[in-house]
């Protein structure tokens, strides 16, 4: 059987058209390569 309240929690608000610009600006489009590069940079900084 379906628990209505539990199922309702799955539903989150959709991104609105007026929020597209903000979303693009805040969008984290780092991929795994960027993350690794960042880690390497941090490591290099700590070493030197």
């Amino acid at each position, binding site marked *: *059987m*379906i628990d*209505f309240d539990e*199922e*309702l929690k*799955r*539903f989150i*608000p*959709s*991104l*609105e*058209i*007026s*929020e*597209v610009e903000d*979303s*693009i600006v805040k*969008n984290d*489009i*780092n*991929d*795994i*390569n*960027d993350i690794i590069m960042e880690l390497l940079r941090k490591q290099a900084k700590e070493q030197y």
Partner: protein
Amino acid sequence: MEKSRYIRLSNSYYNQGLIYAKQRDLSACISCLKKALYLNKNNIDARNLLGLVYYEIGEAAQALVQWVISVNLKPDDNVAQRYIRSVRDKSGELEKVADDIKKYNQALMNLKAGNRDLAIMLLARVADFAPNYINVNLLLSLLYIDNEEYSNAERYLKNVLDVDRYNNVARNYMQAIKEATAVNRKKKREKKRLKNTYSHRSISDDEVIIPKGYNDSIGWQTVLNIGIGLLIGAASIFFIYMPADRAKMTDSHNKELTLLGEKLNESNLKINDLTNSSDELKAEIDRLKESMNTVDEETADKIAQYQLLAGMIDAYKSGDYTNAANLYAMIDADKLIDIDDGSGVSAKAIYNEVSGYMTSEGDSLVMSLGDSAYNSRNYELAIQYYDKSLKLNPANSMALFKKALSYKQLGDVQNANAFFEEVIEKYPNSEAASSARLERGY
């Protein structure tokens, strides 16, 4: 891992996502494409496809985000530019999807506040015109399942499964409906079986057995007798009491109307010399309404015209010309009694005096009310205002064009196209006609 390995892995996920998309397993497709982008953000194909899938499931804003990022990463020779253009340039499309998303979010808020009926109403409006908006259809079906309206729930779940064939949530809900309807069927069968079961309860000494036949005949005979009594009562009221009373009341109403007219004349209702006459009119109308219990339709109509006239004078007096124009458009001049006792002032004369101003300026004022309603996405109300504007000035091509646009926003393509064509035919050289041609795709 080398960068090239990430790219290869990203491409694999993209390829898998493409397969899922072709199979219409959009949930799995989204999952693959997100992984593809996590491994390589520059995977333009994956990003564009992700945008497409978001658009397909009704998440237009998410789609635009992906396409805009895609264009920023690769400005030249990018199909995402065409996608963005097609959404932006198709008249009313962006507004419609924005409105659908707003309604969905509003429905979620209503549910949080406990307004379930309002949420259902909002969601149903969206789902009927946007059956591909998955979250709306899922939420709506959940609400119907909770209300045990299983056939309604199934209808919206079918919408979901048409778009996203293997959507897990929809399949779970379908399963729940199957189980619930099976249980219900079992209960109904059990109930039917028990109804036919003979009771072996023993009768005690002081119980009286009433013959079956006697009860039944008393039942329907009583109903029949009551029915006949009601009919005789109603007939006597209709044939004896009402004609006499109506004649008396009609005579009394006519006298009251004449008094009203005299009051109008007495208070010298020239527009330039407005005093408190509209207040007196209103007081008179209120008193009339209180004294009457039954009013024949014609008299009630005439009184309504007086109310509109009084309201119009009021609005004009206070400088609210837009409202005055709106009320003017509602007056049916044919139903205004022209009571002219020789003083040269009458309700019809007052009406005619403002007509000059209203027909020249009123239509624009009322059209602006329509524009406000349109901008608030209340398209039905916008149509009403545009109709009033056209009543004031039938040659207002822009009002006719905007009426067509409003029908288009409501999804009534037939009416929309009919009115666009009317604009083009009647006012071929107007700005409205040019816009109408664009809408029709000429």
